[in-house]
């Protein structure tokens, strides 16, 4: 079986995988990082979204072996070691942007990428279009859009995080 070495949430790992093992299967089954979810089998829902070298990707549409040498960031790697949440996590909570929580990890990872790539600002329309690759069945997206707009303000230094 081939071996793949990569960095996941800052930690180096080397794992034996079948060539057909998907990155999401590596994360969930080999590394026990079950925060990344699988919601479909046609690369539509985005529940499996993680960051690969700083870009959002669907970990269900990538072989684990393709991640050789890459840096992967999952939902488990966002909060600081002391438990302080990433501003996106904090704003999702503040604005009730999640209900069942299943799409949430992928949604948060996509949202962070979207905000990172748009320091110039994000309109509501851009946020909605930017979430094209993520399905949520619970919220109607309304509060997700609000949370992302609020997180943009914090991530680009326009506002401080709400005091907990």
């Amino acid at each position: 079986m081939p071996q793949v070495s990569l960095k996941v949430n800052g930690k180096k790992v080397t794992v034996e995988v079948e060539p057909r093992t998907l990155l999401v299967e590596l994360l969930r089954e080999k590394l026990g990082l079950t925060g990344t979810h699988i919601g479909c089998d046609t690369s539509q829902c985005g529940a499996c979204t993680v960051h690969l070298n700083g870009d959002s990707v669907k970990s269900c549409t990538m072989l684990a072996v393709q991640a050789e040498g890459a840096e992967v960031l999952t939902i488990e790697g966002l909060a600081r070691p002391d438990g302080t949440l990433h501003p996106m996590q904090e704003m999702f909570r503040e604005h009730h942007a999640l209900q069942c929580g299943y799409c949430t990890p992928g949604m948060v990872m996509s949202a962070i990428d979207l905000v990172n790539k748009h320091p110039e600002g994000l309109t509501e329309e851009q946020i909605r279009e930017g979430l094209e690759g993520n399905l949520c069945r619970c919220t109607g997206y309304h509060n997700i859009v609000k949370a992302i707009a609020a997180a943009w303000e914090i991530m680009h230094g326009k506002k401080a995080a709400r005091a907990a």
Partner: protein
Amino acid sequence: MAKEGIGAAVRRREDSRFLTGQGHYVDDFNRPGQLYAYIRRSDRPHARIRGIDVSAARNAPGVVAVYTGEDLAADGVGGLPCGWQIHNKDGSPMAEPPHPVLALGKVRHIGDPIAVVIAESKAQAKDAAELIAIDFEDLPAVADVRAATAPGAPRVHDDVPGNVCYDWHIGDLAAVEAAFARAKHVVRLDLVNNRLIPNAMEPRAALAECDVTGNYTLYTTSQNPHVIRLLMGAFVLHLPEHRLRVVAPDVGGGFGSKIYHYAEEAIVTWAAGKLRRPVKWTAERSESFISDAQGRDHVSHAELALDEEGNFLALRVSTLANLGAYLSTFAPSVPTYLYATLLAGVYKTPAIYAEVKAVFTNTVPVDAYRGAGRPEAAYLLERLVDVAAMETGIDRIALRRKNFIPPEAFPYQTPVALQYDSGNYEMTLREALKAADYEGFEARRAEARRRGKLRGIGISTYLEACGIAPSKVVGQLGARAGLYEVATIRVHPTGSVTVYTGAHSHGQGHETTFAQIVADHLGVPYEQVEIVHGDTAQVPFGMGTYGSRSLAVGGSAMVKAMDKIIAKGKKIAAYLLEASAEDIEFADGVFRVAGTDKTKTLGEIAFAAYVPHNYPIEELEPGLEETAFYDPKNFTFPGGCHVCEVEIDPETGVTRVVNFVAVDDVGRVINPLIVEGQVQGGVAQGIGQALLEHAVYDANGQLLSGSFMDYTMPRADNLPSITVGTESTMCTHNPLGAKGCGEVGAIGSPPAVINAIVDALKEFGVKHVDMPATPEKIWSIIEAHRPRLAAE
């Protein structure tokens, strides 16, 4: 304390784990020695199975076992039970054909499970499943209800003639006919309520294990673990409850689709017992499309009789309801008691008659999906009222107001069995119109026109019945279960509280709202209250979460249990404070001798109860824990007004919802943040039904929209911001005054959207557009009318 009590917008405590990847959904569980099940399903809509050869699969790498329906039958495994029996017009019971866990002799829909392969890895199980050779003899199939009831239609079940499961009715036909005979106006409408696929984001999963003593544990994606334990234990696998634990941990959305007892739960539990190793099954999304119960699928004809002034005289409805190939757990109740009983809506229509023929077809079974029957009723009624306005020339708002049940008429008995306890339809209408700036609409229509767009506005003033319902009543209506809810309140020795609730949370935020109720009622700090749900080994019993009942019924059970705690606490306090129990008052967590400063806190009472050194041990048992079963006294009746504004691009037929306002009466609001979220989510599903979603079968039962590549799920850019308001009247018959908010969004919104579209197209003389109002449908309507417009 009040900052986290009833009415406070408390941020959800469950979010901490969901936002950090620490949620525990069924597929996240793994047990030592675990095997994986893969189910070989039918790719034929209707076929006889002449033979199954599993030998190659059995010999494939990693395969531990392969089972077919014959293996299960030989072991005495029963069929999947149906929990509701409807009777025909003539009083005879409905047809109830067998529903085998794995197909026996025949397959009846795409996705019908045939065999299961159990292997050391998921991939090996799937590899081997392909090696099962099945000798099919294809049979003619039927997918559409009209075709299925036509003479000579293929029979889904050999012993169900005409494919009719039941032919049921409600209401006074003679009174309705008399009213139609004297009516000034009669308006008629044929309409289809499109079939939907629930698509909770978490696919279903089940993981079962059996220990050396024969005790089973099933982890399953369920909205009601106790019901699964009862149905599977008693009817399918014949396992006694005390040896079967069912856990529904974090569940990623349900919307009804996870209420039912599914074949896969029985398969993995049975196999775990046979193999004495844990067995896990997780649906791939493609499987969800062909194995999760689907929703809606009605074809209806409706007629409304009005007098000269526009007063509704009578309503007559005839509906064909598609049940799919088998009876899902609660399917028979949906097009009957959850549908036709709602046809009065918010109107004082004096006479109503509805007949419903429920039909088997070669499609995936249909059962309750968010709203279940009530969206179908609201859609029919609110479309029909708009058509009546159009045809009589009476303004649609004025027509509604004229026929509203007035606030002083409650309790109001409808002609279709229900008695409404409270409501104020004028209030929600008025507030919704204000929030949507209905007055200013014509200016917006004109402005859109200048941009080449057709703008329309539509409203619905809908009603739903939820919090189902008095056990005695539902028993008379055919339910084979009681519909109470259960709660245990355990006050620990130091005064913190654990609540064990039979309701299940899969997105609703019960861990937060239930804790708010308990904190409020017992006067303990919110942080000191823990909510436990979803585990039959911890919670005494429960009926689970569906039909917007968790707060109205489950919350009421908690209040009832807390009242028992308080009553016992008063007796203890009376002893400790040397007073009579009648003189003890309880407020804000403190027991007090009325009119004095002699007090004991709940914590002190709890400590005394568990360390009963100074305690009336002869009269009272130690401990402070109470269980209550709450049986609702009536349904609850949330309702309200939804206003939708759309813009249509006449060149492409694309409809955009540009504004949506929902003002709902949900009774007491425990947490406004959560109520808003529930309504927004429901509205999104309703807009999805109206514009995007459609489970399309071809005439032979092939599902053409079998993945997210073809089934249009609403995405962020399909939806507008959704303005939510609440204008509440209190439920009069439960202690919280709560009505429920889980389904209102999905019930009120579809007719508002279609009414807006018809309004936008009014210059074309359009009477009705069936859902989903796809771009091509709209474009075709515009095209068809273009020559006539050009000629005028």
